[in-house]
C-alpha cells in the first residue's frame, strides 16, 4: 500500500492525520457548505448583512417551500425525470446490443465501428449543434422532451458501447463457445447467457448516464425553450435571472436541483465508481 499505512506511523503523526482529515474536508467543501447555510437563512439575515455567519433563525421550510411555490421548479424537476429515465433505458438497451456485437464477433469492420463510437464520443458538442437542432426542428420535436431524449440516447451510446464492449470481452469466452457447439442461436446466447452476466455493467451505466443527463445543460438550452419541457439545469439558469440577489432562494433551488444525482450517487456508490474508473486499472 502506498503511502505507508498511518497505523504504522508514530502516534504524533497519526493524531496529526486524524486532525487534518476533517479540516481538509471542510476547506474542500467550503463553497458548498456556504451555500447550504445560505439556503436555510431568512431573507432578513441577508438584508442585515449576515451573509457569512450562522443563521439567526432556521428558515429551512420557508425558503424551500418558497422555491416550490414561486417558481416552476417542480415542473422542471419532473421534466428532468421525463428526459433522464427514458434516456437511461434507451442507452443501456442499445449499448448492450452494440457492446455484445463488438465484443463477441470478429468481423472485419469491428475495430472501425468500435473506434467510430469512441471518437464520436469525444467531439465538441458545438459541431453537432446546428445540424441536430435543425433535424429536431424538421421532425417537429423541437421544444419537446422526446427531441432531447433521442439525441441523448444517440450520443451516450458512444461511451456506453465502449464500456459494454470491454465488459463483455472480459467475460469467459468458453461460455459462448460451448453454447454454440450445442446449437444455441446467437440471439439466445445474447439473451440467456450474456445478458444475465451483464447486470453489474448495466447498473454502473444506469447510474452514470442518469447523472450525466440530469446534469446536462447545453442541450437543454439548445433543444428546449418553454418551461413545459425545460429540465431543471436550464430552468435554474432562468430562475437565477429572475431572483437577482435573492441568494437564499437561489441556494435552496440549487440544492434541490443537485439532490437527485447526489442521492443516486450515495445509493449506488459502488456501481458509480466502477463505471467511472473503467480502465483506470488495466491498460
Amino acid at each position, binding site marked *: *500500500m*502506498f*503511502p505507508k*499505512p*498511518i497505523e504504522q506511523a508514530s502516534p504524533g503523526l497519526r493524531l496529526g492525520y486524524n486532525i487534518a482529515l476533517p479540516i481538509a*474536508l471542510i476547506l474542500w*467543501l467550503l*463553497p*458548498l457548505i*456556504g*451555500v447550504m447555510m445560505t439556503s436555510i437563512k431568512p431573507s432578513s439575515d441577508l438584508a442585515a448583512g449576515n*451573509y457569512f455567519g450562522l443563521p439567526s433563525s432556521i428558515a429551512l421550510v420557508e425558503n424551500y417551500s418558497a422555491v416550490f411555490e414561486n417558481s416552476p421548479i417542480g415542473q422542471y424537476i419532473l421534466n428532468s425525470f421525463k428526459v433522464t429515465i427514458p434516456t437511461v433505458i434507451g442507452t443501456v438497451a*442499445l449499448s448492450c*446490443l*452494440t457492446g455484445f*456485437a*463488438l465484443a*463477441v*464477433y470478429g468481423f472485419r469492420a469491428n475495430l472501425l465501428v468500435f473506434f*467510430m*463510437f469512441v*471518437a*464520436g464520443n*469525444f*467531439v*465538441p458538442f*458545438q*459541431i*453537432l*449543434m*446546428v*445540424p*441536430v*437542432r435543425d*433535424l429536431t426542428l424538421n421532425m417537429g420535436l423541437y421544444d419537446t422532451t422526446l427531441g432531447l431524449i*433521442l439525441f441523448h440516447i444517440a*450520443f451516450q*451510446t*458512444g461511451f456506453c*458501447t465502449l464500456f459494454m464492449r470491454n465488459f463483455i470481452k472480459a467475460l469467459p469466452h468458453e461460455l459462448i463457445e460451448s453454447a454454440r457447439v450445442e446449437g444455441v442461436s446467437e440471439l439466445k446466447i*445474447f439473451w440467456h*447467457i450474456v445478458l444475465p452476466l451483464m447486470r453489474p455493467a448495466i447498473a454502473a451505466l444506469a447510474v452514470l448516464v442518469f447523472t450525466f443527463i*440530469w*446534469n446536462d*445543460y*447545453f442541450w437543454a*438550452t439548445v433543444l428546449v425553450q418553454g418551461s413545459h419541457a425545460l429540465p431543471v*439545469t436550464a430552468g*435554474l439558469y432562468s430562475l437565477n435571472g429572475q431572483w437577482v440577489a435573492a441568494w437564499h432562494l437561489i*441556494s435552496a433551488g440549487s*440544492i434541490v*436541483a*443537485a439532490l437527485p*444525482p447526489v442521492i443516486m450517487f450515495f445509493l449506488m456508490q459502488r456501481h458509480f*465508481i466502477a463505471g*467511472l*474508473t473503467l480502465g*483506470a*486499472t488495466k*491498460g
Partner: protein
Amino acid sequence: MATPVVMPVTAAPAQKSWWKANQRRLAPWIFLAPGVFMFLVYVIIPIFESMWISFYDWDGIGEATWIGWGNYVELFDDEAFYTSLKNNVIWLVLYMLAVPAGLLIAIFLNQNVVGIRLYKSLFFFPFVISQVVVGLIFAWFYAPNFGLLTQILAWLGMGDIAILADERFVTYGIIAAGLWPQIAYCMILYLTGLNNVSPDQIEAARLDGARSWRMLWHVIIPQLRPATFIAVVVTVIGALRSFDLVSIMTDGGPYGSSRVLSFYMYEQALSEYGFRMGYGAAIAVILFLIMMIFITGFIWKMVSDERGGR
C-alpha cells in the same frame, strides 16, 4: 441460468437453414443496427453537415448562400475569436492541474482509518453536482462585498476584488470553479489506481531503501499509468468542452473577455445577436480540429493497446 425457451418453428426449413448457415456472419450487424443508426444520424453525419454549413451564410430559416471560405476569412480577422482561442489555451493549460492535484488528494486519502470511505465520498461530491450548480455556488463564493472569498481576502488585508467582473481575473475564476469537480474526478481515478498498485513491488522498493518521493516517482507513478492516461483524456476533453460554467457565471462577460470557443459559437449561432449559423459552424469546425489533434492521439494509443494487449 434460465432454461432456454423453445420457439415454435414457423419458417420454412429451407429459409431456416440459410439463416442457420449465415447467422454468425449476420448477427453482429443485426445487433449493431439500431445503435449505429442512431449514432450516425445524430453524431457522425452532423459533423460533416457542420463542415458543409460553415461555407454558407445562413440565418437558420431562409435561403443559405454559398460564400466559400468567407466565414473563415472573417474569423481570422475577428478580435473576439482570438480572445476565445486564447482563453481556450488558458483553460487547457490550467485544467491540467487537476491531474497532479487529484493524485495528491488520492495519496492523502489512501489510508485505512475509521470513516475514510465517507471522506472519500465527500471529497468526490463536487463531481456529482451539475456544473450549473457549481457555477452558481462559485458565483456566490466570488460575489463582491459579501462573498466568502471577498471576506477571506478582506480578512487577509487585501482589497475588494470582484473576480467575475474584472477582465484580468474572470477566466481564472471560472477555471478554478471548473477545477473543483475535475480534481474530484482525477482523485477517484487515482484512488482506484492506488488500490491496484502491486504491494510486492512496494515492499521490494522499501527494502532497497526507496523513500517517499523516490518511491512515488520511480515505483508508484509508473504503475499508475492507465489511471493517468484516463485522467489526462477526461481533463483535456473537459477543458475544451467548457461551456456551462462560462454561460452560468458570466455569460461570456465582462465585454466578452471570458468567452471560450464553445461559448462564442453558441452566441453567434443561437443568441439574440442574430442567428449566424454558418459563422457559428465555422467556429465549431476550428474547435473540432483542435479537439481532433487530441482525439487522434488518444485513439492511436488505444488502438496500439488493443493490438498489443490481446
